[in-house]
């Protein structure tokens, strides 16, 4: 059984077997990230492949200060952000206030219930969110980035990040509640 260190050393030398071993060891975990950030399996597969190509290209810069999984996660998240930034245009972030906040207060209990649902349902609810909300919910609520970091990464203000998160949460809860009703 190869250790992470052996695999990393092999990857640094460009050994295809080591690269495949790294993919097999962490591919599923990374694919989970890709699904969360992409919203659909096709884009997630693209992100997964691009991400691993980048991992193999830049693994020489991995110093071993942190776990390889953390390093790869960061790389995949950065790649997802960079894809979003390429696709998005400035005005998208100005539209925050146009999202209705109405029914949020009435559904607290229902939401608590719905979040106990399966990963698949939450994933499909995330996928149904507009990309910018999905991105901020993933970054903040799941991957524990601060609003400051998110603001820097996305080129928006901290306030903008908070607004996106707040509206995104409301939309996510609504989506989950609707699924539950059905």
């Amino acid at each position, binding site marked *: 059984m190869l250790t992470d260190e052996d695999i990393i050393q092999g990857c640094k030398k460009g*050994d295809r077997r080591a690269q495949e071993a790294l*993919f097999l060891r962490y*591919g599923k975990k990374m*694919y*989970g990230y890709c699904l969360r950030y992409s919203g659909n399996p096709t884009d997630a597969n693209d992100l*997964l492949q691009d991400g691993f190509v980048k991992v193999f290209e830049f693994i020489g810069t991995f110093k071993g200060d942190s776990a390889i999984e953390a390093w790869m996660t960061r790389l995949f998240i950065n790649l997802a952000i960079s894809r979003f930034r390429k696709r998005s245009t400035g005005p998208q972030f100005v539209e925050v206030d146009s999202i209705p906040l109405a029914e949020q207060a009435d559904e607290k209990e229902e939401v608590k219930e719905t*979040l106990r649902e399966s990963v698949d349902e939450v994933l499909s609810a995330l996928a149904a969110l507009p990309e910018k909300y999905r991105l901020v*919910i993933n970054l903040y609520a799941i991957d524990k980035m601060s609003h400051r970091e998110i603001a820097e990464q996305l080129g928006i203000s901290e306030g903008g990040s908070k607004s996106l998160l707040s509206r995104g949460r409301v939309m996510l809860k609504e989506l989950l509640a609707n699924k539950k009703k059905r």
Partner: protein
Amino acid sequence: MKNEDIHTDQQLQGLFQSFEPPLPKGAWEGIEDTMNRKRRRRIAFWWIAAAAVLVGCISGLWFDLSDTQNTHKSVKKQETTVNTPADSPIKPSENAETIITSESHSKKDIQTGGVTVNQIQNEPISNNPAIPENYEPNQVGLEPVLESKPGQVVLPHPFGLRLTPQQWPAVNEVRAVKIAIKEQQKVADSLKANMGKWTLSAAVHQMQTGSGYAVNPEYSRYVHKNYLSRMKEGELNMGGTGFAIHLGYRMNQKYAVTLGAQFRQLNIRQQFNFTDEVPVTLMPGNTPDEFGNYPIIGYFGNAGSVTYSGFQRNTIVEIPLGMNADFRITSKWSVKPAISVNTGFVGGINGFTLDYQQLQITAQRSEWFRKVQMSGSLSMGAFRQISRKMQWGATLGGTRMLTPAYIPNASVRPRNHSLGIGTQLIWRID
């Protein structure tokens, strides 16, 4: 942040903490394809860049050569015809036709202002409206009178012509060309004079290693019958980068001896995917080869499939001792052939290879290699003088192993030659 939000976030985190969906089909193949494509593109880019540099150097050399030849032709004609008054006495026997046929100055040049040669000789200065009344020929450094007549200024001229000041620009232009050529000659002379005894050079080269193994005839029974064909199928591409520094000592104007240090890599990409027969070896009464294998007496059945894709890298540090020559083609360009014998010390041995008897993938081991290896290199370079002390050039060369890479009595002998291109910068250090 509300407690409810914190709770929601925690639930989401918990939900996805161990979320590992099954991998999509064909994901790894897609990654492999992308990497192979990128690699091919990268290799193509470097080869194109190297070829462009080489073509640039060769065309630069060609243009430089043709320019120089034209200039030399021109100089030759001018030198027989143009003598400035300050430099030498006039030769009345030479005539105007000589300069008219010169490449840099046509008859039209001489006829500046629409005045013919005959008119120039006979026209009195007083009739020429272009000449100011207070004009003094001495102001431009020319002696004004040789065969003066009243009212006419006759300038000393190498062709026996008598030019009025209107024709001086043409004469001065010729002088300027001559001075420029003299300057150029001076630069070339000074370059030669300044060529010092000691030089230091730095080089980078990209080598392409020849593929193929050879079986040691004495040990042919130790090698699987399909080994060579498997290696041929499996080895895809070979290349390696090298860096070198040399200290050179010029023995005379042309030849120099050099001693240096060189770092060289052999990179080998291998992809094996096959099923083959299992060899049967016979131990009693036989001696093993250097790798501990016994001779094969037959084959039976099929072994499991061998699948491998990997990268092999061997690093060699060498001390090249050699000679080079400097054949100066023009004042700026020279051609340098070089030859050297290299004493190499095997450094890093990394990656996997195919076991020549069992046809299984095995890690390369440094014990297989000779610790000291000898090789010979031959190269040819086109170099340009880029400053008084520096030359830069592109080289094309090859290296061949003079001793086998593997230890003596090994059953196989790995590749033994490589070809490559490089670039080199030479400093004169004394």
